[in-house]
């Protein structure tokens, strides 16, 4: 027996399984990052000696732009599939992947500068929060990259056999990807600007 509503939507909920699943997952991610944000706020309000070293705002701004762009290319990739344009999908998802790479490289440079200024997680609680939050966010980016690469490469064979299902997969990956972007949108002012 097939598992129902894997591809098609269940009439009373209007959802296919994967979409509900990913939103539930994202809900739990909200709580994960919520725990970190909560800690950040508490530590910061609770510590009269809170110290925040200068971080590179230009690099982070650039990275924000990169991540936002990758979100657009991701959503465009999905739209292309819905328009039955597989070539464009490939193009856009390759762009997404490359932008994600760019994000990670820039992040790497940033970390490097910080290390060279002798700023480590152990330096103070700001740096600890900074490295933990951006590190965890980076891991999420990395996870997303793996999936995007898979869907660009071997996973895309499914387009021939089950196009609708493949489109769903891309949609789900997109939802996740935008969430990662969304987290960054909050991390950026919280860690760099305030």
């Amino acid at each position, binding site marked *: 027996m097939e598992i129902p509503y894997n591809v098609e939507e269940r009439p009373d909920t209007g959802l296919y399984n994967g979409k509900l699943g990913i939103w539930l997952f994202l809900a739990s991610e909200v709580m994960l990052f919520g725990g970190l944000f909560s800690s950040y706020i508490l530590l910061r309000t609770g510590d009269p000696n809170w110290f925040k070293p200068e971080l590179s705002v230009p690099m982070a701004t650039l990275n924000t732009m990169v991540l936002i762009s990758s979100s657009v290319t991701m959503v465009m990739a999905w739209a292309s599939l819905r328009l039955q344009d597989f070539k464009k999908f490939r193009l856009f998802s390759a762009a997404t992947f490359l932008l994600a790479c760019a994000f990670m490289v820039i992040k790497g440079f940033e970390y490097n500068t910080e290390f060279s200024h002798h700023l480590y997680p152990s330096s103070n609680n700001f740096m600890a929060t900074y490295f933990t939050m951006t590190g965890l966010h980076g891991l999420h980016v990395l996870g997303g990259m793996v999936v995007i690469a898979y869907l660009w490469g071997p996973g895309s064979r499914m387009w021939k056999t089950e196009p609708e299902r493949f489109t769903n997969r891309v949609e789900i990956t997109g939802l996740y990807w935008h969430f990662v972007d969304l987290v960054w949108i909050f991390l*950026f002012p919280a860690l760099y600007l305030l």
Partner: protein
Amino acid sequence: MTAHSPEDIRKETRVYIFVFIALAALTVVTVGISYLDLSTGPAVALALFVALIKGSLVAAFFMHLLSERKLIYAVLVFTVFFFLALIFLPLGSFLNQVAG
């Protein structure tokens, strides 16, 4: 998503571009604000406000929450409630600490 004609989808893609421009602009705005020498309170409020707008744009359009099913909203409403509890109750306890 099924009921969308190619025409609709093309329209959507145009919206995506607008959203992108808005996001980029708002990023510049946040950075700009951070160079105004505001005191902590307003600075935090303003930065969070801008981030909230940006986040809502991403959620509403890229994650197409605007046209999403009720069920998803229900899940998110719960999540937001518990998220707020997670942020504010510990903070409340910290501020309501017996000290001497």
